[in-house]
């Protein structure tokens, strides 16, 4: 169990403000934020390596004020893994037990167990410099777990791995989560990792926690436009509700968008339209499809991807559309600068925030 209460830290001109979060025993908590959001600093504060300006860290109901890092029962794994380069993998793993003066036979047994658990028994005598990124990561996590910490702090553990190794390491972490009762706080900028691993996610933007919830809550129902943009929802707009003919709509730019549910007049709501729900059609002056909205736009940019084309449109509001590749030919991809008609169904409009 670990709790942060109204924690504030200043690093140069940057500030983390009023950070409050709570992770229960065995919970996998992912702190999601863009690079440079002060996530590493926050972990160092939790570890006691850096002092907070205000606020409190509580681990297992014990206030950590004035408690040294070595007595906090935490372990920290940095993004670069920070293995001790002059010690072998096995000696790295043994380090924590050695400085705690555990008996030799106990250390040997535990190191062997951990090496086996992480599938790296054959690497025990190797030096970190000769290990691959994925291997180093396993050694680092095994080293962190060797002293049975109650909280494991992970700093972007997958950021420096290539994608194939990364997938494998995410599996290692999933196993870890299932088999051990350690509370894990991981900082990350990757939505993918948050989805694959987190029990709960907190979004850290501009030095503050903007939303805390399960991955589904964060990614499906972001609480604000800022969070919606950060979690990658396209076509985010905010507007004031007006009710007409029993139907709620908002006006964004000069565009009236029908909402899929009713809201009281005057409410400010944030909506998003998933890019793959926006169709791009040739301009059609008398286009009228019931339950749909059509906007005439100019194609500003077309970015080909592996599975799709991403089309950015300029109209009364800027829109982004994703056009799936269907195979050879790919239907019609509009060229840059052409006039097109962007169409979306009113039922595809997602409402993220606003009082219902």
């Amino acid at each position, binding site marked *: 169990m670990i709790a942060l209460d109204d924690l504030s830290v200043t690093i140069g001109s940057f500030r983390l403000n009023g950070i409050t979060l709570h992770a229960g025993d065995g919970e996998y908590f992912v702190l999601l934020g863009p690079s440079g959001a002060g996530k590493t600093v926050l972990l160092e504060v939790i570890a006691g390596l850096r002092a907070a300006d205000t606020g409190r860290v509580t681990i297992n109901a014990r206030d950590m004020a004035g408690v040294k890092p*070595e007595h906090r029962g935490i372990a*920290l*794994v940095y993004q*670069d893994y920070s293995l*001790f380069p002059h010690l072998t993998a096995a000696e790295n793993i043994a380090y924590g037990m050695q*400085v705690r003066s555990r008996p030799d036979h106990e250390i040997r047994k535990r190191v062997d167990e951990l090496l086996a658990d992480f599938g790296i028994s054959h690497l025990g005598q190797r030096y970190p410099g000769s290990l691959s990124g994925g291997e180093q990561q396993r050694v680092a996590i095994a080293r962190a777990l060797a*002293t049975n910490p109650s909280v494991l*702090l992970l700093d972007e553990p997958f950021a420096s791995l290539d994608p194939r190794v990364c997938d494998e390491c995410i599996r290692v972490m999933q196993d870890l989560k299932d088999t051990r009762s350690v509370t894990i706080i991981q900082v990350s900028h990757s939505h993918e990792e948050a989805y694959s691993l987190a029990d709960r996610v907190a979004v850290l933007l501009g030095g503050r926690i903007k939303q805390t919830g399960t991955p589904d809550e964060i990614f499906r129902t972001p609480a604000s436009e800022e969070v919606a943009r950060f979690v990658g929802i396209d076509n985010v707009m905010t507007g004031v509700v007006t009710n007409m003919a029993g139907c709620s709509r908002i006006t964004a730019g000069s565009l009236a968008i029908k909402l899929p549910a009713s809201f009281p007049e005057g409410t400010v709501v944030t909506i998003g339209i998933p890019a793959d729900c926006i169709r791009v059609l040739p301009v059609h002056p008398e286009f009228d499809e019931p339950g749909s909205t059509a906007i005439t736009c100019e194609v500003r940019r077309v970015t080909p991807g592996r599975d799709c084309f991403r089309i950015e449109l300029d109209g009364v509001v800027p829109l982004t559309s994703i056009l799936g590749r269907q195979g050879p030919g790919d239907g019609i991809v509009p060229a840059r600068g052409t006039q097109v008609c962007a169409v979306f169904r009113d039922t595809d409009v997602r409402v993220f925030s606003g009082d219902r």
Partner: protein
Amino acid sequence: MKDTDGSRSNQFLFSLWLVGGLLVVLILLAAATLVIPELAHPTHLVSVALDTSVVNAIVVTFAAGFVAVMILMVLGTPLAYVLARGRSRWHSAIETIVDLPLALPHTVAGLMVYLLFMIRGPLGVPFHQIGIVFEDAFPGIVAAMVFVSTPYYVDAVREGIVKVPERLENVARTLGASQYTAFRTITLPLSVRPIISGAFLAWGRAVGEFAAVIMIAYFPMVVSTLIYNRFTTGGLEESRSIAFIMLVICLVVFLAFRLVSRRWGWSHDRT
């Protein structure tokens, strides 16, 4: 295209060699003017080498150099560590103070050491009370050597410790090590190389010191003092023989150091 490029860069490198090589020639030429006449008169060389005053001077020089380096290691390593880890303006002020002996003429440094450690000096008085005298004594030589070689040791070790990531210490802390244990088990072993090379640099500086040493201790004579003394009184031939002996010893120590430092200690670029 490739060929022209290659030959152009070769021409460029060659002209650099032509200019820069003059320094190498200068050193070799200087060594030759010392070595050749000495090797031509081996009997004279042997008689000088067995002269008690020469042997004494060599022993005094190397013993004092050794003690000076020991003192530097004990006092200078902690200083290098705090300077390496600190980032405040305060720290850079201290670094400037540490480097001061580099900028001073050695006679000035010698005078400072003398004023400080002479029998009536601010440090000379308390040391005198516990029976240690610096003027014209072995401790005086050591004091002068420590003073002039401090920046060499502290700077080299500091540079080395800066290269040991602080994160390694942080990880050690979270694994249960106290600050001291983290320093002893992580930072220190990773700094063995800079400590050895710093010690060697400082030692070289110390055993070569002349001006600062004679200000406080003309006697017992160190090798530099003896060479100067013979040069002014006995003549060129005798001082040259002592210089040759010193050259050989320093060369042997230098080569031994190169050999040892290649094998000893963890290197940052080892994979």
